[in-house]
């Protein structure tokens, strides 16, 4: 591993989250959406792991599954040395303060009928004792911390701008002093000028409280900015995981390459000269992934083997993991 000194705060092994599809006369389970299909990664204490990928590839599901907002299909999740992969929901309650989530859509994730104060206070009500006044004070502090004016405590979410709403969501996540926060595309719904505010805030808070983030996004430039290491997902699987610099400078997996080349550059001269890898076709359905490598249907450098054998997810360079036959020739041709 890259930094052997650091210990993983979160350790996910072979996580699978399949949503069943029921059909037939007796509602038998006929098939399933393999939203997350065997994902393993570690998140080290104090780092930000970026998780990128196309829409629908299972990023949100993965993030939610890690926090056990879903009852997962299989796999192990260790947070803070506690295995929570199979813990029943009521028992998870006491774990909740350590792990929190910031949601994709700041509008949708705030109850429109609760005031900001109530929203931020809810976790306190659930997990802490103390008088109402104490809690209110804590709420005010949290609002300060995320840069929200205390005066707005009695307002409803709709009266805020997107960036402010996202701050409310962050304040709620911070309320219980979590160690680990899953940020599920916290900026996707925001305007560019506000995205920066939120990202800066997240960074500040990380510094201040020593937080660990799983930062989900499809904005590669933002991930480059915030993440220490980056995992790239495609169709329910991680295809590449590497430290930020290495990944952006020298992507290994063809999908990562295509993804990076597709990011528009805000510079007309560059933008028109870069050779883009334009992928053909659409993402296959997660309920019916192709045989072999999931990416084989769109891969520009597809080989025969890709269509038959699923590549292993392995460390190909120190600290760099990928799942691609291009980097497997030494071992797997024997197959």
């Amino acid at each position, binding site marked *: 591993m890259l930094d052997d000194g650091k210990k993983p705060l979160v350790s996910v092994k072979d996580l699978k989250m399949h949503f069943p599809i029921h*059909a*037939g*006369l*007796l*509602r038998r389970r006929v098939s399933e959406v393999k939203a997350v299909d065997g994902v393993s990664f570690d998140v080290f204490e104090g780092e930000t792991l970026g998780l990128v990928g196309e829409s629908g590839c299972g990023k949100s599901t993965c993030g939610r599954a890690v926090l056990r907002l879903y009852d997962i299909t299989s796999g192990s999740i260790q947070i803070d040395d506690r295995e929570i992969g199979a813990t029943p929901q009521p028992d998870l309650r006491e774990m909740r303060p350590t792990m929190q989530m910031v949601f994709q859509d700041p509008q949708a994730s705030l109850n429109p009928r609760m005031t900001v104060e109530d929203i931020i206070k809810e976790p306190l009500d659930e997990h802490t004792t103390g008088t109402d006044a104490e809690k209110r004070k804590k709420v005010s502090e949290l609002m300060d911390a995320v840069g929200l004016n205390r005066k707005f405590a009695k307002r409803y979410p709709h009266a805020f701008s997107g960036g402010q709403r996202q701050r409310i969501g962050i304040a709620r996540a911070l309320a219980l002093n979590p160690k680990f926060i899953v940020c599920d595309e916290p900026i996707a719904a925001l305007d560019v000028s506000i995205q920066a505010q939120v990202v800066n805030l997240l960074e500040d808070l990380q510094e201040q409280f020593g937080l660990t983030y799983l930062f989900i996004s499809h904005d590669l430039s933002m991930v480059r900015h915030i993440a220490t290491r980056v995992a790239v997902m495609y169709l329910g699987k991680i295809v590449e995981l590497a430290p930020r610099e290495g990944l952006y400078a020298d992507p290994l997996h063809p999908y990562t390459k295509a993804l990076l080349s597709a990011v528009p550059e805000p510079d007309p001269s560059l933008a028109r000269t870069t050779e883009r890898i334009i992928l053909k076709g659409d993402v296959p359905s997660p309920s019916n992934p192709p045989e072999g490598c999931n990416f084989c249907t769109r891969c520009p450098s597809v080989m025969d083997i890709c269509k038959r054998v699923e590549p292993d997810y392995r460390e190909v360079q120190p600290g760099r993991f990928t799942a691609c036959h291009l980097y497997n020739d030494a071992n797997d041709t024997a197959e």
Partner: protein
Amino acid sequence: MLNYTIRRLVLSVPTLLFIAFVIFMLLELAPGDPMASMPLTIPPEVRQQMREALGLGEPWWVRFPLWLKQFFIVEPQYWIDNAFGTNFADGAQRIISFQSRSPVFDTIAERMPQTLWVVGMSYVVGVAIALPIGIISAYKQYSVFDQAGTFVSMIGFSVPPFFSGVLVIVIFSVQLGWLPSIYDTTHRVVDWNTFKFQLQQMIMPVMVLALQTTAQVSRYMRASMLDNLGQDYVRTARAKGMSESVVVMRHVLRNSMIPVVTVIALGIPSIFGGAIITEQVFKVNGLGQLLIIALQGSDIPMVMTITFLLAVLIVMMNLIADILYGVLDPRIRYD
């Protein structure tokens, strides 16, 4: 879809059996007595004999299975015999009404035409009036038309039919002498004149009943239209240069109808059972009147059979509403 339908049908059988049982026990517990309508001059011993002749001497655990057998086995056999001249039933006893001593199903079949003509037609008329009102109210929200529509429909909803019915009779039959006050169930439509008469005798009960339907359906329609008028695809349609009528009648209406159709379907059972008062006021003598007479006469087989058929209708309409939902909304597929 077919699978789904079959599955739902299969599942509804135990439900219906249970419902049948509950209804039976309810009637069993109810204090009515079929002898209550007999004159007091008939001495008690004779009453007792008559009661026994009706089978009321047997305990419920004999009579309930007997009813089940008659309903599910004997009656279908009779229909088959009737249709194909076979002889499955072989003289088995059908479900016989206590009051008329005739097969319950024959009576129900006899009542069907007027129920369909009046109650069915009123539903059709009610819906036919409600839809345009709902559409216009929503399209011109807060206009005078909209306000008046709300006002009239609420008034219509809140006037009991035993009053509105008599009121229209007093006006149109007694004062003006335009319309018959008593529905002629034996009337046959053969030519224009008889058709005209049929219209004349239907118009009052249909309108009184339709008022209630209109009030409710138009509210739903309005709400649903309002939901859809704000959708993005409406703007798309306008941007394509479609005229307002096409936008509203083709694009918005079809989407708005999806929930409304299910509401309409779910309302059908209650209209069949709920037309009791109106049928009584206009002497339509349809199923509602049959039910009320049977109830008043404690004609248990009749009540049992009609209520059970209504229960079947309710369950079927639930199913049909779901299926319609799927048919109208291509996003929903039952498989």
